[in-house]
């Protein structure tokens, strides 16, 4: 178990290194550089050139990459020209917002997927099952940004049940109970909008896995022991069916990153998704690079997480 985890983490390191190189090169290929947004149009070309030399922008790419990566390791991700703030500072507050939004979304995703998948897998080809699979097809087909706009319109504006923007009530004091409630209240609608869409693949996964598992020999053996139907589902089918869902967990995180970019913009939620789109528009290179690196690391961590989860629930993997 431990050797498995340690080996898995060791494999991760070169992955991250490779990722950082690719991201750096991609950023280099974008038109403009860290200086472009900062330049006052009235400055002469010689001054610009001097500044370039001073910032090391004329060095070969690998030297520049080395400068950048050593800075990154020291926690210095550069300066955002748009916000006139260090990137680290800019990202950290929003990162927490996005983190909690993602956690909320994940909880909702599984809270919806597991009961629906169970019901529809256990009673497959009944009317209930057809309604649930019908919903999943709608979920597969509906683009998240249209669906989120609809949710915003119906529950935010029409009924007015939820706030329509921001991450907390202005003026709320951090640390108080009201502050906490307000945070949750602001997260609920965006998280729900995202969860209702991302959950459908998990529902489908769980459904087909349960249909598959309930015909297995060991389920038959459990029946021949006289185990009641509900106990069979609880003790034998459910856990076996969760394996692929657990394996999928890490990729769910990757999906969340993509979803959060849309969702945060639609709900004006101050997270890194919103910051990302904004920075791309403004050519804020250092912020974009930092965020892409962050997203990449999050995906790699996600797959690590699913491997570890899988090795906990499946003894056959644990042993290897």
């Amino acid at each position, binding site marked *: 178990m431990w050797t498995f985890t340690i080996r898995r983490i060791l494999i991760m390191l070169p992955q991250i290194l490779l990722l950082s190189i690719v991201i750096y090169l991609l950023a280099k290929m974008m038109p403009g550089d860290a200086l472009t947004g900062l330049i006052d149009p009235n400055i002469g070309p010689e001054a610009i050139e001097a500044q370039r030399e001073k910032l090391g922008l004329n060095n070969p790419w690998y030297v520049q990459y080395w400068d950048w990566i050593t800075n990154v390791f020291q926690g210095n991700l550069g300066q955002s020209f748009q916000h006139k703030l260090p990137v680290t500072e800019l990202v950290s507050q929003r990162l927490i917002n996005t983190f909690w939004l993602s956690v909320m979304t994940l909880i909702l995703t599984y809270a919806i997927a597991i009961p629906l998948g169970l019901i529809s897998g256990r009673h497959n080809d009944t009317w209930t099952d057809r309604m649930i699979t019908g919903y999943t097809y709608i979920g597969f087909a509906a683009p998240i940004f249209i669906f989120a706009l609809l949710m915003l319109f119906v529950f935010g504006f029409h009924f007015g049940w939820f706030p329509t923007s921001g991450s907390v009530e202005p003026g709320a004091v951090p640390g108080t109970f009201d502050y906490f409630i307000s945070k949750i209240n602001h997260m609920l609608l965006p998280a729900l909008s995202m969860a209702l869409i991302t959950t459908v693949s998990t529902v489908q996964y769980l459904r087909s896995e349960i249909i598959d598992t309930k015909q297995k020999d*060991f389920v038959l053996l459990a029946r*021949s*022991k006289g185990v009641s139907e509900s106990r069979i589902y609880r003790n034998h089918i459910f856990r076996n069916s969760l394996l692929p869902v657990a394996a999928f967990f890490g990729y769910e995180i990757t999906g969340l990153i993509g979803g959060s970019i849309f969702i945060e913009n639609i709900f004006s939620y101050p997270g890194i998704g919103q910051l990302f789109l904004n920075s791309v528009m403004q050519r804020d290179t250092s912020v974009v690079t930092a965020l892409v690196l962050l997203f990449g690391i999050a995906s790699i961590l996600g797959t690590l997480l699913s491997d570890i989860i899988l090795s906990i629930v499946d*003894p056959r993997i644990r042993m290897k």
Partner: protein
Amino acid sequence: MSDALLNIQNLQTSFKIKDHYYAAVDDVTLEVNKNEIVAIVGESGCGKSALAASVTGLHNKDRTKIEGHIYYKDKDIVNTSASQLNQLRGSEIGMIFQDPLTALNPLMIVGEQIEETLILHQKMSKQERKQKVLELLEDVGIPRPEQTFHQYPHQLSGGMRQRIVIAIAIANKPGLLIADEPTTALDVTIQSQILDLILKLKKEMHAGVILITHDLGVVAEMADRVAVMYAGQIVEVAPVVELFDNPQHPYTRSLFHPHCPNRNVYMLFRELSRHYQACRVLAAVFNHEFPGSQKMLTRKNLPCMKSVQIIMSDVLVTNIFTSWIWRKGELIMAFLKVEDLHVHFPVRSGVFKRIVGHVKAVNGVSLELKQGETYGLVGESGSGKTTTGRAVIGLNEITSGKVLYNNHDLAGLIRSKEIQKEIQMIFQDPYSSLNPKKRVLDIVAEPLRNFESLTKQEEFSRVGQLLDQVGLSKESIFKYPHEFSGGQRQRIGIARAIALHPKLIIADEPVSALDVSVQAQVLNFMKDLQKDLNLTYLLISHDLGIIRHMCDRIGIMYKGRLVEEASAEEIYQNPQHIYTKRLISSIPDIDPKNREKRAALRDEVKREFDKKINNYFDSDGIAYDLKPISDSHFAALPGEGL
């Protein structure tokens, strides 16, 4: 009411297929008494498993209709509620399944799985329960119960897992045990152990046992009474000795035909099913002899009537047997020669996966095949037989040694296209070795596309020809694998293997995934093909019956080494190596009157085996080299006499 333990009366079990109900069990009446083993024999599809499922209520309730009565201790199972049935299952009726590899929950330690059935049916404290589980594990012959309790199924061997399944079945001392092909998936030495265990438990618990099997040898060894099932009906019930001595029904007679020496009954079964197109045509034969069996003919799932004129006659059966005498052909120089083959797999461990040792899967094997012959490699799982085959065709890397094919060394070299073409393989599982997303055309034509550049037209006609050769219609060319039965799929696999006119075919358990009656069809087809195309087979199997039927010479593998090699007859009549002796003695005998004698012999051989097996290995635990016994018989005996 009779005092039988289980009393089945006029049972009719029908399955729903596309809005119609088809009777799988058709008007069956049968009794099982306490302390009695009733064997139900018949080929696959005859309804024997459906009968067992009806007794335990394990059928799919939406698609099954059960009529008639099943009384267990005077309680009618057909009309009990689900919860009452749950009470009965596990406590009064225990069930043993066919495949121990899939019958246990992979995520639960085996101790818990045995405990579960105790929790459901008995009130015990936690300590009592654990104690009881350990006792059960000991009863079924698990050597270290305390350790096994905490193990997961994948950590145990097939035989061990079947013992666990049996422990679950007997946990609550059931009155009735149902064993559905309990040993079909196991090696022959393990089979005899499991059968002995079932016998022992039956004696201890005075339980009634229903033993479902297709293996007449198992019947002869185990059963008190036999029910022969055919096309959903029980066509004959008799005490075992009587049935084997004097079978009444033509179907039973066909199983025990006088022209057929005892040892070959199993083969005859296969041969017949080939000649009579399995079940369907036999129905026609019955109709001829037994006008009363008209009912079978009208059943919609028995459509093939094209050979009504075939009447089971002694002449025909005799012909079948004479055709068995294999061609002692013009055997020339060694066609395939394997010299001192070693295949070792590294064992890795730790964070960096360093190599810490080697599994010596094949540890010095030498053998020779002559053109046109069939060489059979036999051994239990893990003996290295599959690895040997895969090394010859180049699917496993050779650690050391030589593989000479027509005097070309195949080891370590990139093989020329010509040689790649000439050696082909037939795989074990026709369900997973054909790509489900490809049409038959693409599957069969794939080797052609790799090696020959044909036009679409040529390719099309070649594939059509090949399908014709393996007995499939040309229309199948555009179908997908799932549209075929297992036997037909294996034929597709064979068509693919012979597409390039190979000379050597390595067949790794070519029929073990198929039904018994289909096995015969495929094996005999392989024989015909061998004659037509002058093929050489390296046949790998754990089933001694198949090997004996197919092979000219047999090599017995044990722990990565060849321990004995001789002609099929010689191996059976005059086994030399202790392991061969054990293997041969483990094959169930077909004569129920020999039961005691066989059991005694088996025990004796086993004792001898346990005592002397170490003598057959040198100080490094490696079997000795083969020494000639006669000019065609070799065995790995120690230098000095035993």
